[in-house]
């Protein structure tokens, strides 16, 4: 046996990963695992204003949740918002990525410019769109009114049928570049051979897109959809600053509903229950998605 095999295992085994991982495990235990169990505990209690204390209510909060029409509305709004934004952002993102994936002068600059929307605090984006969608002073509202998509002087965010779209617009503006950047990187990593043979065979541009580009981009699209989907499902910032869930319950997302129940209506236990409900759904769907698409980290 050589010297190498004698010495290597000792070093590889004796260096246990635990000391390295300890700080990470500690912070995750204290700030992710402990709150999780605290939340479960809290969901079995409810704050009683009269006594200024918590009362044990068992599963009452969960029973209340399943019978609460506003919760199902919030779930529907969240899913609708997530779905619409994903579809539009993936489609638009792919179209723009194909458009600006070029080595011609100026395109690098354009790609850099697109990244800027990503670093704006979403709360500030929300305020920007609040002003731009204002019935009287808003440029977007005026533009949409001029082209005849909405009636002139419509308050987009106060109209039950339009309010969610007003929020979707802000999301699309801010997050489509996320898709563009990822798709451009994906396109650049594609091998060129399939394209060369397709050209020789005389395939049309659309055929190349549908038969070659999109299938080869599958994994890239899956990653983008997973990350964006997780973030969309927790939608809070835009609706909080733009609509506070209104008009009525038209833009109430699960996160906003949970937050308001806890902090505006002092239903601590019920708010915790709703947030757990949202947590379970996203963990279930995201894990299912990861195993179906075979993504690995």
């Amino acid at each position: 046996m050589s010297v190498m095999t004698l010495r290597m295992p000792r070093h590889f085994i004796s260096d246990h990963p635990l000391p390295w991982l300890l700080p990470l495990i500690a912070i995750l235990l204290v700030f992710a695992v402990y709150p999780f169990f605290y939340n479960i505990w809290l969901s079995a209690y409810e704050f009683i204003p009269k006594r200024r204390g918590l009362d044990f209510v068992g599963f009452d909060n969960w029973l209340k949740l399943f019978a609460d029409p506003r919760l199902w509305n919030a779930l529907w709004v969240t899913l609708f918002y997530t779905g619409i934004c994903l579809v539009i952002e993936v489609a638009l993102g792919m179209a723009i990525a194909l458009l600006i994936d070029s080595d011609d002068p100026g395109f690098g600059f354009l790609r850099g410019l697109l990244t800027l929307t990503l670093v704006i605090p979403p709360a500030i984006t929300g305020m920007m769109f609040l002003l731009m969608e204002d019935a009287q002073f808003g440029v977007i509202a005026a533009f949409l009114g001029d082209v005849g998509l909405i009636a002139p002087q419509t308050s987009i965010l106060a109209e039950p049928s339009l309010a969610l779209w007003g929020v979707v617009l802000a999301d699309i503006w801010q997050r489509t570049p996320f898709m563009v950047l990822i798709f451009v990187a994906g396109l650049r990593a594609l091998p060129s051979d399939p394209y060369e043979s397709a050209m020789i065979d005389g395939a049309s541009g659309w055929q190349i897109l549908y038969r070659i580009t999109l299938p080869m981009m599958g994994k890239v699209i899956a990653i983008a959809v997973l990350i964006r989907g997780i973030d969309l499902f927790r939608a809070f910032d835009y609706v909080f600053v733009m609509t506070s869930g209104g008009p009525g319950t038209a833009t109430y997302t699960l996160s906003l509903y949970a937050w308001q129940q806890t902090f505006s209506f002092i239903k601590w236990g019920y708010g915790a229950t709703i947030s757990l409900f949202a947590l379970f759904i996203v963990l279930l769907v995201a894990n299912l998605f990861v195993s179906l698409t075979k993504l690995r980290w």
Partner: protein
Amino acid sequence: MLLTPWQRALRIGAAWAVVSAFAFPIVYWLMIAFKPDRDIFSIPPRVFGFVPTVQSFEEVFGISLGFEHGLEVLPGGGNFYMLPRLWDSIVIAVFSTILAVAIATLAAYPLSRMRFRGQHHFVFWVLSTRMMPPVAVAIPMFFIYKNFGLLDTYTGIILIHALMNMPLAVLLLKSFFDDIPVEIDEAALIDGASRFKIFRKIVLPMATGGIAATAVLCFIFSWTEFLFVLTLTQTSLKTVPVVSSTFVTSTGTAWGNMAALGAAAMVPAFVFILLVQKNLVRGLTLGSLKQ
């Protein structure tokens, strides 16, 4: 694909048009910051054609640029002096970034270099914390912080922002460490170097670019975070995104001041993001896609 000169010109034109549409709200917002109130509130809205003023900036930063405008005290005793809030944002973003990157570099090393039982599950557990809706952390954290006196403190927000960035930092740094050939480690191990020495003397210096990119992204995510700061602070500190949503007064919304503050919050982030263009996609996908 080969394009004719016409198609090429068309493509360049279309690309500029699309990017301009995306850039418009930013440009518009920056113009609002320089507009006097009467031009912000014009019906129908006008984009161009105004006399620029720095009045909004003067009020937000509490400085005088020679336009004779002191602090305006609002009904209720508040004002738009926001320099302390900018400072809060900087302190929180800087320290939470340092904490997150320090813990994550340490954790990413064995995840990249050692093989141990349950490793895959561990990585997945870290990834799962990225999936949790922040509201499901913020609600219990409010009560936990209340019990420990951490509400409304820098420490509390710094810790929670570090946690929020942990999955990103760990997975991203792991992917950067994976790029460094493992043979270098093995050679050093044979020469009798300890794991920690290899980490400090070889891996860290070789990964500085990746660590810097990770730090920039952590900084930006802390800088733009809203829900945790909204929930876990009360009066003594607030970051820029949270305080922006309070610019609504009894006489209407102070759009000019808000835009001035927003501009001040955006510009540093713009500079940072342009510094990490090369690693941006990798960062946005938690290290799973390389450019």
